[in-house]
């Protein structure tokens, strides 16, 4: 009877390792499947994977530590801009290259700062974690709603800053609404020529991108699992339940929450850095409030605190966005044309995605507030009426 068993997670080895191994194998083979069947889904799947990573990052903040963060997009944007700044020709006053794949046409070193994508992934993670600490330190003393308001503001301020940061005392930091373009491709230049697609990630063969984000997602999942089962994970659960009692156990609530915020921010930043390099140009408008809400919906839909649930939530919502809505759109158009109805034939269904997400969220809250795959403790928190009985002898005085 180990401690892990008492928490109800100790399942059979087959269930513990079999299912994850199968899923990983499936994910590894996906590009071959996509190629063989001619699905052409590589691009949407890579973007979905970015969102899986974002949702897992936010899961640390919301699911584990119970902090409602409505401005998660800020870290995503900061991560993307790190890559924008340090792997493009944006700062053309200087010419710095470090292990980069970028070459100028003349063969000399290109204008701008060009640092290896792999280094920038780490830099973006560290930078956003630091930003998380700077934002979190004063605000995490707040509880509940107040924190949500502050993070909401932060999520709005950062994109505004990028939008207006093209003239900071004469210095062009963000290039404003035009954004930063032609971001360098990642690549592993030391590889032999037979692996040329990996030397410099291209836009035709998306496999290197896919395996990179898959690796990042797997790292995120692993860290999530380790954190959940760690001392820190315990501290998060206790702070979520009762800050005062947690403090009496010797847990500093503020630093505990700060860890969650910084770690969540870090994954958001790394996801943003990957996305920036993948999409090659970043604009302030790519980081709107909608994304914060979308990622939040993924976490809630899947099941706050449950890693598999959150992954499923992210895949489901982005799947609807990328695949189901355009599909429905085509069907509606086809029906509209056969009926001769211009209203249906010209309808723009994907425009209603947030309306549809809204309906999904309302239905989830009514029918299954704990999410598709719930976290054990979360489930009980949301079905609180079940334990109001107590026994006659003791009464039920509860704080």
């Amino acid at each position, binding site marked *: 009877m180990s*401690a892990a068993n*008492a*928490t109800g997670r100790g399942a059979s080895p087959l269930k513990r390792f079999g299912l994850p191994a199968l899923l990983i194998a499936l994910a590894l083979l996906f590009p071959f499947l996509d190629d063989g069947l001619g699905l052409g889904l590589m691009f949407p799947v890579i973007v979905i994977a970015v969102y899986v990573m974002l949702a897992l990052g936010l899961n640390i903040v919301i699911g584990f530590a119970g902090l409602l963060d409505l401005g998660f997009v800020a870290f995503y944007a900061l991560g993307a801009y790190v890559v924008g700044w340090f792997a493009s020709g944006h700062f053309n006053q200087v010419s710095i290259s470090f292990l980069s794949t970028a070459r100028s046409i003349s063969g000399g070193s290109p204008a701008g700062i060009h640092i290896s994508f792999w280094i920038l992934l780490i830099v973006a993670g560290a930078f956003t974690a630091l930003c998380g600490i700077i934002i979190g330190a004063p605000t995490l003393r707040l509880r509940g709603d107040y924190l949500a308001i502050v993070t909401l503001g932060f999520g709005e301020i950062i994109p505004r800053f990028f939008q207006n940061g093209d003239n900071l005392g004469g210095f062009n930091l963000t290039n404003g609404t035009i954004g930063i373009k032609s971001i360098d491709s990642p690549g592993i230049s030391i590889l032999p020529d037979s692996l040329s697609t990996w030397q410099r990630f291209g836009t035709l063969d998306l496999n290197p991108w896919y395996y990179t984000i898959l690796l990042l997602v797997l790292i995120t999942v692993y860290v999530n699992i380790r954190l959940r089962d760690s*001392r820190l994970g*315990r*501290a998060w*659960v*206790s702070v979520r*339940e*009762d800050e*005062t*009692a*947690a*403090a*009496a*156990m*010797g*847990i*500093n*609530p503020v630093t505990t929450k700060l860890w969650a915020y910084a770690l969540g921010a870090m994954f958001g930043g790394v996801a943003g850095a990957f996305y920036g390099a993948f999409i090659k140009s970043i604009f302030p408008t790519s980081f709107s409030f909608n994304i914060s809400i979308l990622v939040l919906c993924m976490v809630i839909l899947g099941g706050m605190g449950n890693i598999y649930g959150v992954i499923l939530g992210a895949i489901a919502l982005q799947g609807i966005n990328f695949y189901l809505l355009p599909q429905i759109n085509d069907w509606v158009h086809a029906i509209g044309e056969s009926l001769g109805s211009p209203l249906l034939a010209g309808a723009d269904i994907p425009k209603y995605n947030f309306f549809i997400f809204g309906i999904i969220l309302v239905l989830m809250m009514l029918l299954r507030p704990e999410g598709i795959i719930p976290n054990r*403790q979360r489930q*009980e*928190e949301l079905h609180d009426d079940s*334990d109001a009985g*107590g*026994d006659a*002898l*003791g*009464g*039920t*005085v*509860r*704080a």
Partner: protein
Amino acid sequence: MPLLEVENIHSFYGHIQALRGVSLVVEEGEVVTLIGSNGAGKTTTLRSIHGVLPPKEGKVIFDGEEIQGTPAHDMISRGIAQSPEGRKIFSRMTVRENLEMGAYHRTDDIREDMERVFDLFPRLKERIKQEAGTMSGGEQQMLAIGRALMSRPKLLLLDEPSMGLAPVLVERIFQIIREINEQGTTILLVEQNANVALEIATRGYVLETGTVVNSAPAEKLRQDPKVREAYLGEI
């Protein structure tokens, strides 16, 4: 040197003064109780000692060190554990997980301590895998005390352990508190139920509107006519 010395502390909730110069002493090995009516400042005194509500004036000296102003989460490593008012157990964790939380700051083996808690409260052992929130009030109180013991405290602060419990259970809990003390833990006990508190205490302090109005050995307080009239329900 006393284990705990509180010197003339003044504590405020916002602008409202709750403690007006409380002083008290707890010697090693004692059970000291604070009695008094609602709003007298009993819980506030505990909160001030424990760092939840740092006093604006005065000193709290524990084990020879001034600790006023130390945050609550540093108290447990100094050797002060508390079972707070309203129990504040982690209701969605199991009994075992709650006890493990009590030993959160420790990195050594806690099995012995868990056995000790189960010896004191066999009921908790039966419920080891149960969600704490689904237990009865009495069991939750046992868990709150057991959880505090998991840190091997030098001083145990108990706030209203009798609250919301049936009289039979109150007797039982107080027997166990005495047992804990006999095993060597010093206890500072805040209690409205002055009868039971004075039965197990070595000494007692009577609080009224934020000041100590009387202090004496427990036996003497039980015989004090004023105390009998005000707190022991006798006319």
